[in-house]
């Protein structure tokens, strides 16, 4: 008896040790390049051009960040990014939840048709130019709402929510109805609180998407005041590249290099997501788990 326990103990110990070693290796593989990006972005252009450092920079300098923040419109771009992510996520999650709630009810009329229509949109999209024309006729060109309205609906997210809502026992809804609750009340007071993990997962997915998206801006926005951070930084990068190209008779001092500016940009854009991730992570895990197991 004792022996088997000891054996199991040994087994799991070996298993754990191997696991820990493997995970450590994985972590190192992931963390070292990230760390290198961070310290490289904090190095002077000259040191960066010479290269050869991995863990600690040779010549500490904030010049790369200064080059990025030199643009005074970057503050506004930051605000646009935050507004578009915040409003975009809330409206998207709420909108998808409403549709998902509706579609999760078996008694709704034409449900199969809606589902089929949704599935089709998952496989076929209008294409870039028709979409542009649509956005144009809707009067959304050069409007902040182009970030929000076209991003309201995602059938993929609706399916996730729909499945989640289906797992809520019918009896719960029935008893609420008997107590006199209407659809809104049931949706807001019962379904939404019960589905927080799914909502958080979708919010995270969508939030990262909104934060990183610059194609929308590229296609539909020409007014610089509506540029989000990503577009602004994209611009700074291309400009630093052409500056290097146009290096004609110019100065011999290199404070920043294209690479340095790019690295600083990566850090600036990634940081908010890195900060948000641990906060949302616990929802994220339970959201994934709940979707996976069906009773």
């Amino acid at each position, binding site marked *: 008896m004792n022996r088997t326990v000891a054996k199991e103990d040994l087994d799991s110990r070996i298993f754990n040790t191997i696991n820990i070693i493997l995970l450590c290796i994985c972590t190192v593989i992931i963390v070292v390049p990230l760390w290198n990006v961070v310290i490289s972005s904090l190095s002077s252009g000259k040191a960066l051009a010479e290269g050869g450092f991995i863990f600690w920079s040779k010549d500490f300098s904030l010049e790369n960040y200064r*080059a990025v923040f030199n643009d005074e419109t970057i503050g506004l771009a930051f605000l646009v990014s935050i507004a578009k992510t915040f409003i975009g996520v809330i409206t998207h999650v709420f909108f998808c939840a409403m549709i998902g709630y509706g579609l999760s009810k078996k008694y709704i009329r034409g449900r199969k048709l809606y589902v089929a229509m949704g599935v*089709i949109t998952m496989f076929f999209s209008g294409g*870039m130019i028709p979409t542009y*024309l649509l956005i144009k006729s809707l009067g959304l060109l050069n409007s902040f709402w182009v970030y929000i309205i076209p991003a309201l609906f995602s059938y993929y997210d609706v399916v996730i929510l729909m499945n989640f809502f289906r797992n809520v026992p019918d009896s719960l809804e029935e008893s609420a109805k008997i107590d006199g609750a209407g659809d809104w009340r049931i949706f807001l007071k019962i379904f939404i609180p019960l589905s927080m993990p799914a909502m958080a997962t979708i919010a995270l997915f969508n939030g990262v998407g909104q934060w990183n998206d610059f194609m929308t801006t590229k296609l539909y926005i020409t007014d610089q005041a509506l540029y989000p951070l990503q577009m602004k930084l994209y611009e700074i990068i291309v400009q630093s590249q052409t500056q290097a190209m146009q*290096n*004609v008779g110019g100065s011999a001092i290199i404070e920043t290099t294209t690479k340095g500016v790019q690295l600083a940009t990566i850090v600036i854009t990634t940081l908010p997501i890195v900060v948000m991730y641990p906060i949302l992570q616990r929802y994220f895990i339970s959201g994934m788990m709940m979707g996976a197991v069906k009773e």
Partner: protein
Amino acid sequence: MNKAFGKKGLKLCTALMAVVLVFTGCGSKGNSDSSSKELSSIEGRYTIDPETPAWKLDKKEETTDLTWYVNADWWNTDFGKDLVTKKIKEDLNINIKFIKGDDTKLNTIFAGGEMPDLLTVLDSNSPVVQKASTWALPLNDLADKYDPYFNKVAAKDTMNWFQLADGKTYGYPNYSNTQNDYDSGNIPAKTAFVIRKDVYEAIGKPTIGTPEEFKSAMQQIKKEFPEMIPFGFNSIGKGTGSLGDVLQDFIGVPMETENGEFYNRNLDEDYLAWLKTLNEVYRNGDISDDSFADDGTAFEEKVKSGKYATMLLDGTPQQSGNLQIFMTANPGKEYIAIDGPQSTVGHEPTLNQSGITGWMISFITKKAKDPAKAIQVYTYLLSEEGQKLMNYGIEGETYKVNEAGKIEFLPEIKDLQLNNADKFKKEYRMGEFMFFGHDRDKALSNDAFAESIKQMQEWGKGKMKPHFILENINPAQGTPEARSLTAIDTTWNTSLVSMIRSKDDATFDSSLAAYKAFLNDNNWDKIVEVRSEKMKNNKEKLGLK
């Protein structure tokens, strides 16, 4: 259940398709009405005078708003904030709203019918440019009607070069160099074979013109400077670095066959002899394997730190910053241009520079609200006055003309350019607003190029030859020939590298043979036909024989 869904799904699909078809069918109405637009009248504003630029005559009081699309993401869209654009704004009484983007954006602009007043693209070979007559206004007509002075400032050769089938010219490029420009000697060479001065002196300043001399010089460098790479070249990337057409120009490989047809310069015997030499140099260990793998940045780092003893360097102005850094840090060791490899059959170098096609090309669209103002912008920027403004700013404010008649930045401006590039860019923006910019204007000032490349440019004098006949001769985009050509070019790039890196002569020959076989299998004859035809057209346009 499944079957039912399948049927339903099919019905649904058909219905959706029908709806889509009906809608798209209706969509394109009302967009094509502008093709026969009459040029609007300028009566009451001014009467044209061939001797005076129209912007000086125009009495329009309200400021004209122009939108200008530039198909480049890096374009700085500010207008009227810095010295250069402020002056343009005042002189012409215009306000320009710049829009920028890439090809995707350009497509949506065309599809959506949201045409700007002016439009600049970077690829003169693109379908948009080829079809300019459908969406742009002809510059000839605009000049006749609004601003005949334009014909004085526009280069005739350039106008002819961009003429479309209807005999009219729609776009005008920047950095278009004509035969006159070449003849004037104002365009500096951008290619040179350079060697570090200290190395050159240490090995006794030998001539390295023949393959034998070249090989032995490299060996000597290797012996005396073991930490250096004897021979380097521009980074290869997806192209040929400076070992393809640049080397061909350097040793003067002919551009056409004797009867004026397309000549495959890659298979020229003289050139192949040099490739063989490079292969031997490689086998002697005098070319680093890294050189084939380095990207632009890695190459620049090596230039900056003087790692290469010699280089076949293309684009010296682009490298001038790096060369300058090395020069400043290592006085007496700077890179200098020498004659370097020469033709084994006695050809003279035929160095290339930007050709007549130029770089960015600008159009006035049919949707232009005030085409008269738009052509005035062209005339203004193309004139002597505009050119000086774009490059050097305003006399007395940013530059002065010295005794030698050369333009010189005022000391505080020069200082700003060297030490506070950001402020210089932001407040003055000289040399950056370069629609209609031109190489010849660089000759107006000694400050236009860095010290580090002046000797190289001096060396290149008299060694340049226009490559006009070879411009824009590739098969039209989308044709089978164009696809074959892309494959052939890629194959050539890899063949070139394998040939230079061959372990022995046999491998070299087999790589070459494989390239030749690839040509035969991929429509090469057709491509040659197309190119020869286009070369003939080029000659006609330029009046060459």
